[in-house]
């Protein structure tokens, strides 16, 4: 009996002991206090950037990225500036007449609660009820003075804000973004991404949405692998990271767009030249004014002969352009254009060249006139033959912008340092 009472006493003691310890709260403040603190912090952070924020704005998860400069003033005024083709007609547009606020709604929310011509342009439903499907209320996912991440409440795209350093004006900012866009994507430039042990081609940079294709593989037409991004002053900012890479920002350094774990580069210039001739049906124009003396002299000789023959157009008769391109019959040619005949148009003749990449170098070798007319012109102006022979050779290529050689290449003859010329797309 005693044992029974003893057992009951021990059991009760254990039971009360178990109850006596209060469960420690995970948080040291109440939910309401924490919510208020989050609001206060967000308010403080938004108005903390002295020169405002660089906002990388993706209207929705399928949208290209846009650049917006946004200043959230302590008094509730929002000043936003943008320049893009979709909403401002490529004009710098600023609006300082609207308001912003931070409120609580399942967490802190940034609301742009009066109309701002810059920031509501994407959310305006326009005629079709949707417009560019942008948001004007955002969940605040992260907010500190160096970085803010938002998520659109309705369409769910992410928005990234970085404080803009002092001294940068709106005009400067957008000029620098435009310069970077040109540097990276002018002439439909295709970039190369190295990720997961593979090499990928990044097309469509001009549209603000990369299409990704593994080199050597056919693009998946049914489900295109696309990556929206915005061009920034120092590189690019993605909406989602590439493949298994986790980074969103790539900065231009030493001719590459460099991230923490991956990089975007360009193929060797010689291969690049051929890529554009073969796949993009593009042509390369040789600069006939900024070139070495040998080429200048040959062109001057051709000009003199043209003036002799075309007496009526003495003043105008001259070589107009030289382009490396692929003809409709898929021959690589040097297109020689000159002005001289009685007609007002320039005349063009094609001379077939063998163009090949030899490692880092590009080999040009004259083969023959493409047709009878080209042969007749060559017979009439033998110095054209001198030009074709002069150009024949192996060249070392130096791009002006390593990530976008289409903007300009210097070709130096490997065996004659005095022979060089420039060409661009």
């Amino acid at each position, binding site marked *: 009996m005693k044992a029974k009472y003893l057992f009951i006493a021990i059991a009760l003691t254990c039971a009360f002991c178990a109850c006596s310890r209060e469960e420690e709260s995970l948080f040291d403040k109440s939910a309401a206090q924490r919510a208020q603190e989050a609001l206060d912090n967000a308010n403080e952070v938004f108005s903390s950037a002295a020169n405002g924020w660089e906002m990388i704005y993706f209207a929705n998860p399928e949208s290209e990225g846009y650049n917006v400069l946004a200043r959230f003033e302590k008094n509730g005024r929002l000043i936003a500036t943008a320049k893009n083709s979709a909403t401002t007609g490529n004009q710098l547009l600023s609006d300082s007449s609207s308001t912003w606020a931070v409120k609580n709604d399942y967490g802190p929310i940034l609301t742009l609660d*009066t*109309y701002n011509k810059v920031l509501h342009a994407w959310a305006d*439903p326009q005629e*079709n009820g949707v417009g560019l499907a942008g948001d004007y209320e955002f969940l605040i996912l992260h907010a500190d003075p160096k970085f803010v991440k938002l998520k659109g409440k309705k369409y769910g795209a992410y928005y990234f804000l970085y404080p803009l350093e002092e001294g940068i004006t709106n005009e400067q900012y957008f000029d620098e973004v435009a310069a970077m866009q040109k540097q990276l994507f002018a002439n439909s430039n295709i970039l190369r991404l190295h990720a997961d042990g593979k090499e990928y081609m990044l097309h469509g940079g001009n549209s603000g949405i990369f299409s990704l294709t593994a080199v050597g593989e056919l693009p998946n037409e049914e489900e295109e692998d696309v990556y929206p991004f915005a061009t920034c002053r120092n590189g690019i900012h993605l909406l989602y990271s590439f493949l298994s890479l986790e980074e969103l920002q790539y900065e231009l350094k030493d001719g590459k767009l460099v991230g923490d774990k991956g990089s975007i580069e360009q193929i060797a210039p010689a291969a690049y030249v051929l890529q554009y001739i073969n796949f993009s049906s593009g042509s390369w124009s040789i600069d006939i004014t900024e070139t070495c003396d040998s080429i200048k002299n040959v062109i001057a000789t051709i000009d003199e002969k043209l003036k002799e023959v075309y007496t009526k157009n003495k003043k105008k008769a001259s070589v107009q352009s030289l382009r490396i391109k692929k003809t409709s019959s898929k021959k690589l040619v040097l297109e020689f254009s000159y002005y001289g005949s009685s007609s007002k148009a320039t005349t063009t003749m094609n001379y077939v060249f063998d163009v090949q990449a030899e490692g880092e170098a590009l080999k040009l070798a004259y083969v023959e006139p493409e047709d009878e007319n080209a042969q007749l012109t060559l017979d009439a102006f033998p110095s054209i033959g001198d030009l074709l022979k002069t150009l024949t050779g192996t060249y070392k290529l130096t791009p002006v912008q390593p990530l976008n050689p289409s903007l300009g290449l210097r070709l130096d003859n490997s065996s004659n340092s005095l022979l060089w010329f420039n060409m661009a797309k």
Partner: protein
Amino acid sequence: MKKIYQILFIGAVMVGLASCKGDKFTESIFIDPVEDKDAFTVEFDNWLYEHYTMPYNVDFRYRLDDNATDPNYNVVPVSMGMADTIAHLALYLWYDVYDSVAPAGFLKENGPRIIQLIGSAMINASQGTEKLGQAEGGIKITLMKINKMETNNIEQLNEYIFKTMHHEFSHILHQKKTMPKEFEQLSAGVYDPDGWQYTNEVEAWQKGFVSPYAGSQVREDFVETIANYIVKPDAQWEHMLEVAAGEKDGDKLIIQKLDMCRSWLAEKWELDLDALHEEVQMRQNDMDWDKIMSLGFMNK
């Protein structure tokens, strides 16, 4: 024992009274104007408080809270500039009109409690329709497409804003005091709640309705008759009656309906419908923008 209860009772009453001591009963159901004297909108907010909240007990909302909108539609807020202009215009062409004609305190007692401005319309592209305004429970009137308003186009302002306000306000009035039973008989059986939008204006007039929407249901017919009569210039109203005459004497039906509305407003609300019409027409013909936009022109 009794004493203990007496002490407890007195104590409870004192505690109760003490807890009421801090309450401030104001004339408005809404909070005081902005407390942040440095706020960007402080001047406008104070003006709204002085000219809407205090005299009419109205919360004039120009900031948009997404939760207060229909999530099936995409809308954007109104611009500060348009909010300012419409707030002034609404005083001139709506609130001050009733003040001039109606018994004292009429709007403060019966007017809407909330006016919400929205910059865009609610567009239903698949049906090809857009919603320009709505009233919720006689309390809130939402006015839309405000950013697109041409402020010197009185016809557009009437169509999208002021006629809508008279329309929605008339709903509030007939929800408080029932509309005449005889009105319900005038076009009984002719209303088409699902197909009214396929009727054009002339067809509607000739059926005895002042607008296609009036042909949707009897209560819309009632408020549309009042709202259209108030805002339409005499020449437009007469033209409508002429066209409405047609073969079915639609004009007579419209006149009959208007008479009923006129009598009902006079009897139930001491409101002179013709005086409202005259006052609005006079103001529409005298759109002095300096006067309209000058802060506090009404000096209430």
